[in-house]
């Protein structure tokens, strides 16, 4: 059982000091979670702390590989609206 940080992480440092297991570390491209240390905060907090402060939707996955903060859940921007705006930008 371990969470995973993927490459959409923006290196904001918010998660690292919160981890009760000291499982999060700064790596070359972005922060990573040591799967041997990660407890998903079980026994310490109700919710995994890294995923609870992370501002980037989709950057942290649970043990099954599912996004803990799926698109739209943190910003409130409906995913289709975001896709629309980005498509318009790329077409420009």
């Amino acid at each position, binding site marked *: 059982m371990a969470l995973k940080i993927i490459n959409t992480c*923006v*290196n*904001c*440092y*918010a998660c690292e*000091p*919160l981890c009760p297991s000291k499982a999060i570390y700064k790596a070359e491209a972005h922060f990573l979670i040591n799967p041997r240390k990660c407890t998903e905060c079980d026994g310490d*907090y*109700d*919710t995994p*702390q890294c995923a*609870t*402060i992370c*501002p*980037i939707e989709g950057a942290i996955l649970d043990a099954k590989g599912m996004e803990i903060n799926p698109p739209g859940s*943190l*910003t*409130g*921007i409906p995913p289709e*609206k*975001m896709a629309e*705006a*980005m498509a*318009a*930008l790329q077409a*420009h």
Partner: protein
Amino acid sequence: MELPVLNETPAASAGGCSSHSCGSSDDQLGHLSDEIRAKVENHPCYSEDAHHYFARMHVAVAPACNIQCHYCNRKYDCSNESRPGVVSELLTPDQAVKKTMAVAATIPQMTVLGIAGPGDPLANPDRTFETFRRLSEDAPDIKLCVSTNGLALPESVEELSKHNIDHVTITINCVDPEIGAQIYPWIFWENKRIKGVEGARILIEQQQKGLEMLVAKGILVKVNSVMIPGINDKHLAEVSKIVKTKGAFLHNVMPLIAEAEHGTFFGVMGQRGPTQDELMDLQDACSGDMNMMRHCRQCRADAVGLLGEDRGDEFTLDKIEEMEIDYQSAMVKRKVIHEAIAEEMHSKRAKKDEAAAKHAEAKKLDTRPVLMAIATSGQGVINQHFGHAKEFLIYEASPNGVRFMSHRKTDLYCSGDDTCGDGESVLQRTIRALEGCEVVLCSKIGYEPWDMLEKAGIQPNGEHAMEPIEEAVMAVYEEMAAAGKLDDAEGRIRATA
């Protein structure tokens, strides 16, 4: 017939008027006590006057944030953009200290070091306070300031008061949690993500508590608010009143910046920013209860130099690594230069105060107000070619006198290549930025822009080159009055506040 210069009325304490609204629309530093005035006179972010002489810099050491704002996107960084929250280079405290001392030694006019994010400095207490602690020890002649969303402020006040902290800026966009929920989708509080009204309520409580605690410690507090039409625009006058009552000394109402390509909630959802008129009207509505700041440039979180310029490129990490800094001798040089600047400012101010006192009893006109745009590269005089101006200072002349209203950038928030715009020429964009102004004062102007300005109903004027701004604005207003151009009572612009 001469007109008084409102922005330059003497301090309330010196003028024998205890009302904060002494001088009616004096929205600069005139109302402040002598003690606070002395504290802020060499601070570029406090006064339109000081920012022409003194420089500031920001270091980005605090990337983590404990709240989400609908006008912020944590992923965003474009090197062509210049706006708050945008930063290219995250520094460690060690690098930040080195960079600060390198800049202070190279640009002796640099008086203020701020930590403003991206992220919230107080959500990064280790990085922020290590930077402050080392600078207050090694570079005691630099003022330190910090900007925060306020969530972690109450627990930080004690630590803040130990350093060389000159002032704290709190961004307060509302005092009503229902409005807050439309601005802040969530906060991180006591190890939980709290959404909606409940999150906003906690944030507001912490902000207000932090404000009161800072004021009780004698630390100056400036309040920033982002004006979001349809959400908090009607509410900000109330915010202004409350923070003033609690002891904040300056209120800076800034326009929302929201473009779809920034990927922010407001940008993507099509929330518009305020127009220049809406912003000025709100600043006027707030100024009845508060000192308003009108010269804010909404600079990048890593800007270096005088407001409106960015010399950050001269101080990238690789460049500062190579610099050898002897800060002790730099401090000696800085002191001499600061004293010379202060003397120049004092003598200019004394002249203006004298002129204002002389004009105070002048007979009042009953003409309408006029907005004028000024091309200047600083020092309070009209000294810039129209075509070189990247921003214009906007002054209002009215029967009550001359006052600084705002600045307007001609290359709004983006200095990138022209192809990313909508095909408008630079000149067309500039003319659009000057909407509402009837006159442009500059040192020189070419034939083509002259023609286009006239067609747009804006009169170019190069006759007052190198003259002090307020005197020239007054003179042009008087000419307009004498020529009968101001007789239409309706006017073509907004009425005076």
